[in-house]
């Protein structure tokens, strides 16, 4: 089953936000996330809110064909709820699930709703995730024409036995082909997602995957260590002893190898797990998350954040469809972040960024912990900002705990 939603207070039925969330909103950038909760098969490691046709069965209105209309309805709701605070959208990100399981026309219609309801900045970044298996040359061209500017392929690995352990069905050879089509369609920004630390993956396997990814000259690479999420098939296999628990030292070695290879290929890290070829290749949408901007998440289980209020939609596509059909907000629960919560989030998110955490973001007491982490070579002080070193990136959570210790 997909990951659990957080605990929070119930969200109001009309989706309305407390006035505090909307104060000064127009001066903050706004992003939209469009979730596509469908996959052909579920990968054993994945705990995202996504469903295969067999999981959905005949429950309610869950056909992929009507999904785009529901998403469009939520975009309209967003317009209503934001009211005066509605403004041009800086970034749109279509994720999943597998967005490219939907026909390009549906993705275009969803983007169209964002454009017509909220407006899209002229230089907006519009990304879609894509499965190398489910894209076509024509489909990619359609998306580019409709205003998509960036595409992120779920490559994960180039090694067949690693892909098999991850339950990924694509042929590794599809990846360079898909990248080629994207380039031909006019995508200037192509990103590849990689996963390291899959049980059974050797250092040499990981090297193979990195080399294969770089051979396609991506503009951006995300490299995530495999996390065994509770409740996934992978977690069960690990628990039963069928697969070994990922080893932290192995993951550390692979992270360092990735950083070395990607930097050698002319890329630079801008977040712990993300590297970009040029400043404009960075994923602005993700940067907005990490900088605490406003975003509206559309779709089942999607999270949103506006001015210190975070909410999340009902998880199941049928429940989601039913809410919208009844003219109600699909929001299930929400939390109004305290000043302390926002402070904690700021430190833990911004410290992960190459641009670093401004020293002024720390309280005087927290600043007393800075010399310690600097002395241990985990953090560099660059002017008035704190930036993680390579070793520090691998120990980022520990550094955050240390700085926030009370």
């Amino acid at each position, binding site marked *: 089953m997909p990951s659990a939603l957080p605990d929070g207070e119930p969200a109001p039925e009309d989706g309305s936000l407390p006035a505090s969330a909307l104060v000064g909103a127009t001066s903050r950038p706004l992003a939209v996330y469009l979730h596509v909760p469908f996959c052909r098969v579920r990968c054993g490691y994945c705990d995202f809110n996504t469903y295969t046709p067999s999981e959905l069965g005949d429950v309610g209105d869950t056909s992929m064909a009507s999904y785009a209309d529901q998403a469009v309805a939520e975009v309209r709701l967003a317009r209503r709820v934001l009211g005066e605070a509605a403004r041009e959208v800086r970034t749109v990100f279509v994720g999943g699930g597998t967005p490219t399981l939907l026909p390009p026309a549906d993705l275009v219609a969803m983007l169209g709703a964002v454009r017509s309801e909220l407006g899209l900045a002229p230089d907006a970044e519009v990304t879609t995730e894509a499965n190398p298996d489910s894209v076509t040359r024509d489909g990619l061209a359609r998306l580019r024409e409709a205003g998509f500017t960036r595409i992120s392929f779920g490559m994960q690995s180039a090694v067949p036995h690693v892909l098999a352990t991850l339950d990924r069905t694509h042929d590794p050879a599809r990846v360079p082909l898909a990248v080629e089509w994207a380039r031909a369609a006019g995508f200037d920004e192509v990103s590849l997602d990689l996963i390291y630390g899959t049980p059974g993956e050797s250092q040499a396997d990981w090297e193979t995957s990195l080399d294969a990814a770089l051979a396609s000259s991506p503009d951006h690479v995300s490299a995530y260590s495999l*996390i065994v999420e509770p409740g996934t098939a992978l977690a069960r296999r690990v628990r039963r002893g069928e697969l070994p628990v990922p080893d*932290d*030292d192995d993951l550390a070695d692979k992270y360092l190898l990735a950083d070395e290879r990607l930097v050698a290929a002319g890329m630079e890290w801008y*977040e712990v797990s993300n590297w970009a070829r040029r400043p404009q290749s960075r994923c602005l949408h993700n940067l907005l*998350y990490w900088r605490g901007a406003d*975003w509206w998440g559309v779709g089942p289980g999607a999270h949103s954040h506006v001015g210190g209020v975070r909410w999340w939609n009902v998880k199941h596509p049928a429940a989601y469809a039913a809410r919208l059909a009844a003219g109600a907000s699909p929001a299930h629960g929400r939390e109004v972040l305290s000043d302390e919560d926002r402070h904690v989030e700021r430190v833990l998110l911004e410290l992960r960024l190459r641009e670093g955490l401004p020293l002024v973001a720390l309280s005087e007491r927290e600043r007393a912990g800075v010399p310690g982490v600097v002395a241990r070579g985990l953090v560099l002080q660059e002017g008035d900002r704190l930036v993680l070193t390579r070793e520090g990136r691998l*120990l980022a959570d520990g550094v*955050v705990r240390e700085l926030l210790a009370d």
Partner: protein
Amino acid sequence: MSLKSAPKPGQTDPSIIRNFCIIAHIDHGKSTLADRMLQLTGVVDERAARAQYLDRMDIERERGITIKSQAVRMPWTVPGGNEQGAEPGTYVLNMIDTPGHVDFTYEVSRSLEACEAAVLLVDAAQGIEAQTLANLYLAMGADLHIIPVLNKIDLPSANPEKYAAELAGLVGCEPEDVLQVSAKTGLGVEALLNEIVKQTPPPEGVADAPARALIFDSVYDTYRGVITYVRVVDGELTHRDRIKMMSTGATHELLELGVISPEQVKADKIGVGEVGYLITGVKDVRQSRVGDTVTTQHHGAEESLGGYKHPNPMVYAGLYPIDGDQFGDLREALEKLQLNDAALTYEPETSGALGFGFRCGFLGLLHMEITRDRLEREFDLDLISTAPNVVYEVQMEDGSEVVVTNPSEYPEGKIAEVREPVVKATILSPSDYIGTIMELCQQKRGSLQGMDYLSEDRVEMRYTLPMGEIVFDFFDQLKSRTKGYASLDYERSGEQAADLVKVDILLQGEPVDAFSAIVHREAAYGYGVMMAAKLKELIPRQQFEVPIQAAIGARVIARENIRAIRKDVLAKCYGGDISRKRKLLEKQKAGKKRMKNIGTVEVPPEAFVAALATSQPSTDKAGKK
């Protein structure tokens, strides 16, 4: 017979009183037999009979052991023409329950003093166990008449011939004199009651002498204060008396007096040979100590009954709350437990590793374990307890002497001699295991004092052993090497000089007081290697390398290394992850707060709990076949 027509307290002729106790091993059926007697005498009816009526505290029930003794007054009419040949008539039987474990030997001996006979109850399928044998010797030493009884004779595995012969040999009677009962079915229990009447000598005392009563138990009750159980030896106590505790001279008003049958029944007075309870309004059992003599304030006795001993702790351990904020709660809990436990001692102490806690003194390991269990269960505390240790006397070369109840107090400087407590241990075992037991005892620095065959295939071995070895892991080793068949009893028996050293455990060069241990020089290396390896497993990797060393003084005898952690970051962090990540961080921060800091090394409390968990005897239950 009806309770209404039973002889009244204070008006009962000593000649019809029979005071007895039951000596039995855990699970040999004492409580079942007591229940059966309560039913047969009409004191408790079948419906009201809670199983194992006499064991009051839940914890005892769960462990199947009796810690605090009780006394029940039962009327019993011996019919004419009974097969046992007991004199027909109406009698008053006082059944005095005894604690069954080695740690409570002194309490056992006081309960025995209150009786004239002891029923020696032994499982007909298992034979006598070491603790029962020890208590039997105590009873014989107290001149009690012994009534040997085999229980569970209805079991298919019962071997009454073999064990009757064993008991007869021990008690000095004929095998056919050993009674056979099944407490479970009631078979033979009436006959046993008649035998008790017949065989138990009636109490002797001087009715018109100043009152003297022996305290054989003292229990704190939340509502009533301390309830003191006494056996009147001479004279009488009446509810109008002011009483005096002869060991301290303290006087108290008597608020209530009575007998237990099986609930408290008020009485105006109790006289020679009778067993009853007193309530004076004191709130602390230390003001009403087991073994003391009660007399009246006016015209009281000049001489006590004698035999009073102050209980001295034999085993010490530090108890620390895992959460430092619970220190106050722990203090209160210990205060409350002490109300009902005169043998428990505690002193606040500070550990560099564990923070603020208490060094507690116990009669033995079981006493320690029960206390810790109760603190955790009844008072909802999470505790770390240090490894138990005994008391060492250290003679310094400059002539001064240090008494060490905590390894971290072990003196530096030049030591002339270290003395350690010694116990006399009795081990009963099938003879197949003689070799392995000898080997174990030798490893534990024991010396064999003697060996006797109780029957063809059962042997009693007597050893002197350093008590420090017993509190370490002797009992578990004994059990595992004899597949649970051996049983152990020990009593304190002086002390001896020994070549002992303190082994320190250092994390990053910083000694961790909670892990220091006083061990024999030859065992020091083994302890050091074992602890270092254990800690390497238990302490999570830190941001830096952590060396673990075991050392005697400045000499390192073992070392391990905890490598630095290299990865501590969740790779992925998309929009929907942020709440989860923040909550995880908060959880980790809370976890960090619980950490015990050794220098800059953070050690989770669970690591202390696991590292300090020496194998301790929980009870002798493992001895069941």
